[in-house]
């Protein structure tokens, strides 16, 4: 049992890293922080199938490893603040059990962007706030797409540990 859990967790981290890499191949629209958040599919899957601690572990480990492998010095700070805020929001929202996968994903996406804005504010001053409307919009749209995919996967994949 324990070995299976370790394997599943490791696979989730590896999958999240690959999705981050795949996403880096998609051309950016030119606004920092606007992205799809493919790796969040794995985090939401883990949140529903494995538990919140496992989801948090996968997300934070992914952020750390991806920044180490593909990122630059500043990217860890931005990704980490986004991931922590996003995780907190998604875990709390899922606990209320009032909303579905899509809302959890949307809140996760918007909070991820909010976390990055917060870090940018700390590093570069309050003017980054002008990015907030477009990042709330992009976080919502991306969150709907990611949430819809996640909902399907959570429903279809039969995982027992």
């Amino acid at each position: 049992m324990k070995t299976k859990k370790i394997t599943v967790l490791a696979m989730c981290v590896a999958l999240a890293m690959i999705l981050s890499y795949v996403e880096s191949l998609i051309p950016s629209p030119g606004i920092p922080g606007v992205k799809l958040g493919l790796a969040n599919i794995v985090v939401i899957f883990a949140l529903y199938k494995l538990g919140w601690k496992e989801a948090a572990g996968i997300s934070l480990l992914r952020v750390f490893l991806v920044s180490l492998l593909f990122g630059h010095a500043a990217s860890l700070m931005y990704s980490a603040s986004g991931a922590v805020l996003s995780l907190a929001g998604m875990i709390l929202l899922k606990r209320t059990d009032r909303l579905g996968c899509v809302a959890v994903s949307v809140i996760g996406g918007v909070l991820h962007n909010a976390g990055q804005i917060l870090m940018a504010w700390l590093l570069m001053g309050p003017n980054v706030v002008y990015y907030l409307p477009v990042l709330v919009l992009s976080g919502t749209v991306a969150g709907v797409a990611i949430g819809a995919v996640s909902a399907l996967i959570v429903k279809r994949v039969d995982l027992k540990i």
Partner: protein
Amino acid sequence: MKDFFADRKRRADLLVIGALLLLALVLYLVIGATRTEGGVAVVRVDGVETERHALSADGTYPLNGGSNILVIGDGQAWLSDANCPDLLCVRQGKIHYTGQSIICLPNRLTVTVEGGESDGVDFVVG
């Protein structure tokens, strides 16, 4: 019964999505309404101002030891080149409203348009 709950959740999800889209629109309108034409482009590295250039005077300026190239023309400011691979700052385009900014994360550099007519010469950059 199960379907009923699933549906209720779906409706709640739509409500959340709608609320966030509305929030984005409100933020956009509030920021748009408070927007005015700016007078100077202020360059900061690590949040510390390094130089400023009036938008009224055309010119090309290497920033931060040449890591990014700032161009000012037609009352607008933009970055024409940078030493990072993704060139996100270049793709952020031209800015001229007060508060608009171009951000280069790798070099931790920002170019921000600030208000007020620049009082003639702000800084002479040799």
